[in-house]
């Protein structure tokens, strides 16, 4: 079936510093995101979710999966912050999973990618960041969480960098609500038109007050 999907990739930092409340908040945030999206028929028809985690290694723990088949993963925190490996894994997953337009087949909608991390990368992340930024495989939104994250690192991956200093459960809840609204808005554009100029990227809803846009 020639279904056009909206691929959504979530890259979650599961390093040791996320232990405790932060990792629990991320888990419940992904569950809430799934539940919220199931309430939107357009998202149900088009959205496919994938979760990539990174600690000392990177792993795609949920491949690109139809919303109705998605099961929220169990996340555990520990180890270091292999952001470079996660970016490489993301790039490979998009190459493998996302369809582009061809004369024979309409491609998927441009992927939406959310990256959040609370610390400095511990691996050799720069080549993967540069490659991803040059490749522009989708609309990438990176969020620097807490005091130890370095927004400048994320700027090397994407121009869309947000800062979330507060890592309380409520802040994560607001963050995932915003992710949900962003996905819905993107899938609404899909339903409403064939018309989003690629050069301008996408317009997302304003982030919650806890999140600051890094200029």
């Amino acid at each position: 079936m020639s279904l056009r999907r909206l691929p959504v990739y979530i890259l979650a930092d599961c390093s040791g510093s996320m232990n405790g409340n932060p990792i629990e908040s991320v888990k419940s945030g992904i569950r809430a995101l799934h539940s919220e999206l199931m309430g939107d028929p357009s998202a149900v028809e088009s959205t496919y979710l994938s979760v990539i985690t990174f600690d000392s290694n990177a792993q795609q723990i949920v491949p690109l999966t139809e919303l109705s088949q998605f099961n929220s993963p169990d996340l555990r925190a520990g180890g270091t912050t292999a952001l470079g490996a996660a970016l490489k894994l993301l790039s490979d997953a998009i190459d493998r999973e996302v369809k582009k337009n061809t004369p024979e087949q309409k491609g998927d909608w441009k992927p939406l990618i959310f990256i959040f991390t609370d610390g400095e990368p511990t691996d050799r992340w720069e080549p993967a960041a540069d490659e991803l930024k040059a490749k522009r495989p989708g609309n990438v939104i990176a969020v620097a969480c807490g005091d130890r994250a370095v927004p400048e690192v994320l700027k090397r991956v994407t121009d869309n960098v947000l800062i979330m200093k507060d890592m309380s459960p409520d802040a994560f809840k607001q963050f995932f609500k915003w992710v949900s609204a962003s996905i819905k808005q993107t899938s609404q554009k899909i339903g409403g038109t064939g018309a989003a100029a690629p050069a301008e990227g996408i317009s997302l809803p304003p982030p919650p007050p806890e999140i600051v846009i890094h200029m």
Partner: protein
Amino acid sequence: MQPEDGPEKSGLGGHSQPKTPKPEMLIKEGTAPKAAGWKNMAAADEWCPALLTTKYPELKNHVYQDNVSSDLILNTGWRVAGATRRGRQHAHQGTHREDAIRFRSSSRCTILCAADGAGSSKWSRLGSHLTSLRVTDHIIEQVEQMDPALEESPEKLTDFLKTQISKAVALACATLEEAALACSSAPKDFRSTLLTLVHFHGKKRELFLCNQIGDGAICVLFNDKTTQILGASDSGSFSGEVSCFVPDTCARTKSERIDVLLNCEKIECLLLCTDGVEDPFYPLQKKSIELFGQLYGGVKEKLPDFTAQPVRPSILNQEGAGWALAEWLGFEKRGENDDRSLLLMHRFPTTVTF
């Protein structure tokens, strides 16, 4: 998350006693919540802001409807039929249709326009409406006023008609820029695609010309049942990516790329459709026969990748072809919830059978 062990009610007013749930009753963590259904809500906002109705009486007088159909039998042996239908996404959100269609016919020519307002643009529904209005009116007026001697030379006639198409697009761009200024918006807030078909039927010559700005498709069916895609669709690497709209600067350049069809006797039907119709039939080059097959021969069974499509008699052999088209546009295909518009010009009565 497991359900709490609770009282199980047995029979009418029976005793309650704790019981371990059966395995199938356990709600596993991560079980998908139930998917929501589609709603059909009227648009909540006004169709046109007051700032613009003052400047444009044609917008003030316009009565918006979610679904519109029309058809007209011409005395040239052709019929025009068209329909535009609000997509499920707009119906669910309670927003307006952003596609627009319009046609006009005079003693010398018939003009068809289909336009699709860009969903990311705030006033795109007005952009598509004004664009189709300006383009049809300009070309009709200019062709009516043209020097009849132009018909003596096929080259001069073609050049004249091409120039009028380009001028009409430029006029539409200027109109949208003015409208943006009038309501303190940016021209890109009025963005729309545009498909234009001109049928010139003078005393000595007959020809078709067409132009495309943005996505959607223009397709011709010949009387030997072969088809050909005309125009130049504009798309990027991913679905939904379009780089040029009216009133962007590039629209003026794209308006100069015009296809001309001179062998009109071989033509059975010409069709314009917005992406809401093209995408479910993509690639149209291969699936155009399925599409024309349904329009001419009716729907005998739903297409394999469609979710629902009622059985219908021939659309184009019906008296009210416009209405029949609007009904036909109601087919369902997963992930295809955009506005749908289809406008066509066909031999009447039809000369091919499917």
